[in-house]
């Protein structure tokens, strides 16, 4: 952090006018990006609080909530499964994330390690699963045969390890100077200790990213739950949001006669469900964000 500032000060002292122009241009690019991104977000927020009839008459051009109403939110809030939905998602997150992280770090560490005789077959075994997936029906039958059907474990265990994330983890571990690990070995540490005491603190930013990847993955997931779970009160929040969306608009249905029903919140409900599912993630974000905005000094730990 301190060094960062130092660096910037240095620039200002002997950097050219070109550099300063770049700063200005850069800020403008960022501002442009923000505006382009924010407008649709702002539109979604405003539309979610607007009168449904107004929204359907003025698509794409709402700068301020019109006919302010929280009706579509009330519709969602009074859903009988809202609480159980959030609770289930929370449980899945709390149980899943430690499992995800442990498996990923173990697999990543194993993959990054050298001089292991059986590394190749195991790595190939992991890689294959990235390309070949059994498909919906076999996976479903598997969940049933393992006795996980209609239990939250069916949302936690399948997909507990992402190969993609494992590779990211491995790349980060490989970036750690080998001497650090060597010296730990000399001190008599075993691999388990090395992982927890040395590796993990060093790859904190990557771990934060992985946590975010897994967390958001679980947060957004709905399809598996929709076929692995039988009881509505064990469904995660995304399924509940989907049901509110489906019941109140015919966007997601394709059949003819039976989709005629449209509610007084048909247009605004899709926006409020977005707000309701995005806000919790946005609230968590700053806590993770700090890990990859500030750098940690690998160099300082070195030696």
């Amino acid at each position, binding site marked *: 952090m301190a060094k960062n500032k130092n660096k910037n000060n240095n620039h200002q002292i002997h950097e050219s006018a070109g550099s300063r122009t770049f700063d200005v241009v850069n800020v403008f690019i960022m501002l442009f990006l923000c505006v382009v991104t924010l407008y649709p*977000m702002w539109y979604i927020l405003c539309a979610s609080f607007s009168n449904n009839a107004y929204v359907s008459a003025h698509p794409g051009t709402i700068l301020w909530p019109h006919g302010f109403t929280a009706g579509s939110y009330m519709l969602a809030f009074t859903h009988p499964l809202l609480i159980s939905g959030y609770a289930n998602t929370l449980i899945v997150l709390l149980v899943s994330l430690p499992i995800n992280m442990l498996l990923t770090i173990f697999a990543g560490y*194993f993959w990054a390690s050298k001089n292991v005789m059986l590394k190749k077959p195991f790595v190939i075994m992991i890689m294959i699963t990235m390309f070949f997936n059994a498909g919906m029906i076999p996976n479903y039958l598997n969940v049933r045969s393992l006795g996980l059907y209609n239990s939250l474990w069916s949302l936690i265990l399948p997909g507990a390890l992402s190969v993609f994330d494992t590779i990211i983890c491995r790349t980060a571990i490989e970036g750690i100077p080998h001497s650090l690990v060597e010296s730990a070995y000399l001190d008599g540490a075993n691999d388990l200790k090395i992982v927890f005491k040395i590796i993990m603190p060093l790859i904190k930013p990557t771990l934060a990213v992985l946590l975010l990847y897994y967390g958001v993955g679980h947060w957004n997931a709905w399809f598996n739950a929709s076929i692995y779970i039988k009881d509505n009160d064990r469904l995660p929040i995304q399924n509940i949001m989907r049901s509110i969306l489906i019941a109140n608009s015919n966007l*997601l249905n394709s059949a003819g006669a039976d989709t005629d029903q449209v509610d007084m919140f048909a247009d605004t409900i899709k926006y409020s469900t977005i707000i309701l599912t995005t806000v919790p993630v946005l609230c968590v974000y700053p806590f993770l964000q700090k890990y990859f905005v500030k750098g940690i000094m690998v160099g300082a730990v070195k030696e």
Partner: protein
Amino acid sequence: MKKSTKSKAQPADRKSLSYRLAKDWSMNKWKYIMILPVVIYLILFCYKPMYGLVIAFKNYKLTRGIDGSPWVSPWYYWFQNFFEDPYFWRLIKNTFVLSGLTILFGFPAPIILALLLNEIKSNKFKRVVQTITYMPYFISMVVMCSIIKIFCQQNGLFSTIVEAFGGTGQNYLMNGAYFPLIYVLSDIWQGIGWNSIIYLAALTSIDQQLYEAAKVDGANRWQLMTHVTLPGLMPTIVVMFILRMGNIVNIGYEKILLLYNPSIYNVSDVISTYIYRLSFPTSGMPLYSKATAIGLFNSLINVVFLLFTNWLSKKTTESSLF
């Protein structure tokens, strides 16, 4: 497996396999213990159901089960059926065009964003920009596409802008020429912030001493970026690129289904939408066998691209996936 150990064993003095295994175990015991839960997971949740892939060679009927369904003859029946489809080449072409463009423009975008963010001096501003650009990732596809549709209408936002500059507006979704552009731009828009996170994380692990040393040598900002920051990001970029190439045939069907209309089928119909039609047919039963066969075909293409990219990057850069 055996082969590789043998070839490695050649130069060393010829110790028996069991001796070497025992030695490996004593050295790497903990590593094997760590990989054990991973292996158990893979066997239970990936390899056990993977048996279901045989339906690509069967005429699978849900109620008859995987074992009860008859084999097709010849064994490549579904593959042949797909290759002989009148739309086969069109599907392949569209898939690669859309995917290629997404990689060409969509892949570098988050890297550039990460680099630019890195140059921002105010930490507060940096965090704000980051948070904002990350938000669109959470907009559901349904809403995202309905917004795109609204903007693309004849009297929509894009037409209004074009007309302000003296052009004539149109419905851009009805013109096949614009579809790839719309597809790629909206993809970038939605993913740029989210995808830059991994690079931002990688940026933090670049050794600050390298910057100091470079500055002592009189490097300017541009040189710092190209000689310190970019090389520092390189391993991550390469790995992400290889993984992306190993995903080349996988285009999400949802977005295309929500955006397309009959006048642009010729540029927007891709393999995944075709698989969707098989799995959710407008009439009759889902053709799971054919869908699985095409899935296998897809996987093979993906593997080939991944291996090729990996080989290429091994040759040209120092980093690679394996």
